[in-house]
């Protein structure tokens, strides 16, 4: 796991990228790769990398070149199936000089071009320079686990793993994007490729970009997709469960590939427990696990975490934090999220990765992704209940079902029907809306835009963040089932834009720790997508198949 940076010169650029510029960019993100670093400088290109060495410890310093220095790569991430792809390439006569997955990525690109991405099982942000074509290739993994941002400034195309790297180039303008703020104060994140900053964009998840002197082009190579309900898998639940187990086992197995120790997070929930169970099955040795709890008991899950640790007999380290500590570390949190956030939950993750790193652990496996792919979140149940209620809006009984969803919210504990109707009744009848599942959440969140200053509100001039989403929906979205639609919205917006970035990559990499997520193996995602909705949300029983 690493950080990358680079500068591409368009023809009108006056000066070639310099070592000083790349060094400044890399220094700003040096915690992403504290082990070694490197820069490649050509006339029209500069590439840089800071490396957290995990695979091929002694032979992986980047940039790496192949084919008589025709191709150069800087790379952040892991190609978990690099052994299998390397074998395929060797059959084609290709010889390797390092033990790294980085070289496999580069050789695969040289052999197959952008089509290589279809074969990759991994989490990555890639930059490859083709010296002969004078062309830059950028790519990001399917769901956006690893970050990659870019901007254009002064006839240069500048990219980096984090935005602060871009801002080390003095010509890059630094201004907050008010429309981006409006999006964050609605969806909790911006809509890709927007960011909170003007003229700064991200390479969208599941996309690659080609940059040359003629154009800057973005192309999607993968999208979260669901079949129409009539085409869902016809497997019985038992058979489907076996299929999921087999895929998940392999997803865990290839995520244990590393030349350093791999540990795991235990949250006290089903997902991380399942992940830990499979780690034990694949590698029965002693596993180091970590958890974070809260002194404030309303938020604490320590008892479940300790129960899981005892059950799996792991070498467990439990931490707990106070509100005061969260307040203190929130400051550092935002330096790393580079996004405004509407909750403090990333901060304990930052504190946890700090503790993990203090024990010299660089890699942790976690349960992220199960709630999105197997319908674990309350928002899926909420939408289902609202649809049920909308069929009989006068009912005083149906809204009571909503009460069970949020027992941790004080206002819900003793809520009467009239209160529930008022709180959950927003656009109840608009069941044909493509955003029905999320309308209420987005509406409630967007109310905090009332705190914007008058000039900011005036500048937004009626801007509706939902317009941007309508344009970004998958082509056949309208034909999907209700649950599939809400899973898509939750995954492509909240998960990619917030959970995997502000709460995921940025909080772990701030302390040089890499997270790995077997539930986000695209084979698992695609398998889960074709399952009937009742295998995921069965009545109001979430992640049904995971409990079989």
């Amino acid at each position, binding site marked *: 796991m690493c950080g990358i940076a680079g500068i591409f010169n368009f023809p009108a650029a006056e000066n070639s990228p310099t070592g000083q510029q790349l*060094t400044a960019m*890399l*220094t700003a993100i*040096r915690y992403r*790769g504290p082990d070694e*670093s*490197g*820069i*490649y*400088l050509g006339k029209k290109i500069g590439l840089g990398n*800071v490396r957290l060495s995990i695979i091929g410890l002694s032979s992986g310093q980047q940039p790496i070149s192949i084919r008589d220095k025709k191709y150069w790569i800087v790379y952040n991430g892991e190609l978990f199936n690099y052994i299998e792809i390397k074998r395929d390439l060797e059959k084609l006569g290709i010889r390797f000089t390092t033990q790294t997955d980085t070289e496999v990525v580069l050789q695969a690109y040289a052999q197959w071009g952008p089509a290589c991405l279809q074969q990759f099982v991994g989490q990555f942000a890639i930059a490859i320079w083709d010296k002969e074509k004078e062309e830059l290739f950028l790519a990001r993994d399917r769901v956006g686990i690893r970050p990659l941002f870019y901007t254009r400034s002064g006839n240069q195309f500048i990219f980096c793993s984090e*935005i*602060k790297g871009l801002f*080390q180039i003095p010509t890059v303008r*630094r201004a*907050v994007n008010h429309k981006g703020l409006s999006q*964050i*104060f609605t969806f909790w994140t911006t809509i890709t490729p927007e960011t909170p900053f003007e003229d700064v964009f991200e390479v969208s998840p599941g996309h690659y970009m080609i940059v040359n002197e003629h154009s800057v082009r973005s192309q999607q190579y993968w999208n979260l997709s669901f079949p129409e309900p009539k085409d869902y898998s016809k497997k019985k639940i038992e058979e489907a469960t076996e299929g999921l*187990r087999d895929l998940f086992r392999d997803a865990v197995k290839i995520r244990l590939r590393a030349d350093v120790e791999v540990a795991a997070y235990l*949250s006290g*929930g*089903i997902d991380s427990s*399942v992940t830990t169970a499979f780690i034990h099955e694949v590698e029965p040795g002693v596993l180091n696990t970590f958890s974070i709890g809260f002194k*404030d008991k*309303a*938020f604490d*899950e320590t008892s*479940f975490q300790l*129960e*899981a640790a005892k059950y799996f007999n792991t070498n467990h380290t439990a931490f707990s934090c*106070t509100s*005061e500590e*969260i*307040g203190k570390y*929130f*400051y550092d949190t*935002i*330096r790393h999220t580079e*996004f*405004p*956030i*509407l*909750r*403090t*939950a990333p*901060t304990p993750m930052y504190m946890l990765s700090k503790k993990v790193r203090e024990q010299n652990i660089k890699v942790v496996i976690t349960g992220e992704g199960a709630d999105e792919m197997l319908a674990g979140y*309350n928002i899926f149940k909420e939408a289902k209940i609202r649809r049920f209620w909308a069929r009989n809006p006068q009912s005083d009984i149906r809204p009571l079902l909503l009460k069970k969803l949020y027992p*941790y*919210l*004080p*206002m819900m504990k003793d809520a009467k029907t009239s209160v529930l109707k008022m709180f959950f009744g927003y656009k109840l009848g608009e069941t044909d809306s493509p955003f029905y599942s999320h309308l209420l959440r987005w509406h409630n969140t967007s*109310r*905090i835009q*009332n*705190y914007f*200053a008058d*000039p*900011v509100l005036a500048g937004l001039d009626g801007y509706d963040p939902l317009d941007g989403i309508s344009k970004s929906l998958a082509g056949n979205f309208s034909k999907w089932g209700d649950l599939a639609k809400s899973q898509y919205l939750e995954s492509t917006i909240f998960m990619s834009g917030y959970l995997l970035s502000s709460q995921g990559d940025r909080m772990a990499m701030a302390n040089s720790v890499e997270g790995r997520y077997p539930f986000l193996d695209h084979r698992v995602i695609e398998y889960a997508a074709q399952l009937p909705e009742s295998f995921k949300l069965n009545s109001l029983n*979430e992640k049904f198949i995971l409990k*079989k």
Partner: protein
Amino acid sequence: MKGKIPESILKRHKQAYRAPVHTSFIGPGAPAYVKELLNESTINSFGYFNPAKVDKLVEKIGQNGQVTEMENMALAGIISTQLLHHFFIQDNVFVSPADKPANMIIIEE
């Protein structure tokens, strides 16, 4: 996954991962930077939020009343936006001459 994980975890009510918000920012143990970022002149100078509304929010939370989810979100959103400006627009200090990436190699054409 029956039989693979503890039964109590399999059957437990799902709890969303959350962390305390207002108690982290407002009250006796509140960090000094929060007061600085939320004072009227800083709010005005950064320009994103209405200082009177922010003041009202902070005052309400400080009175130990019941704090709603919306108020918690607003508080975190305002403080984090102020911090964003502080780090990236106002200061942009992430590199000092003493800092360098580790063990660097430079390859020049």
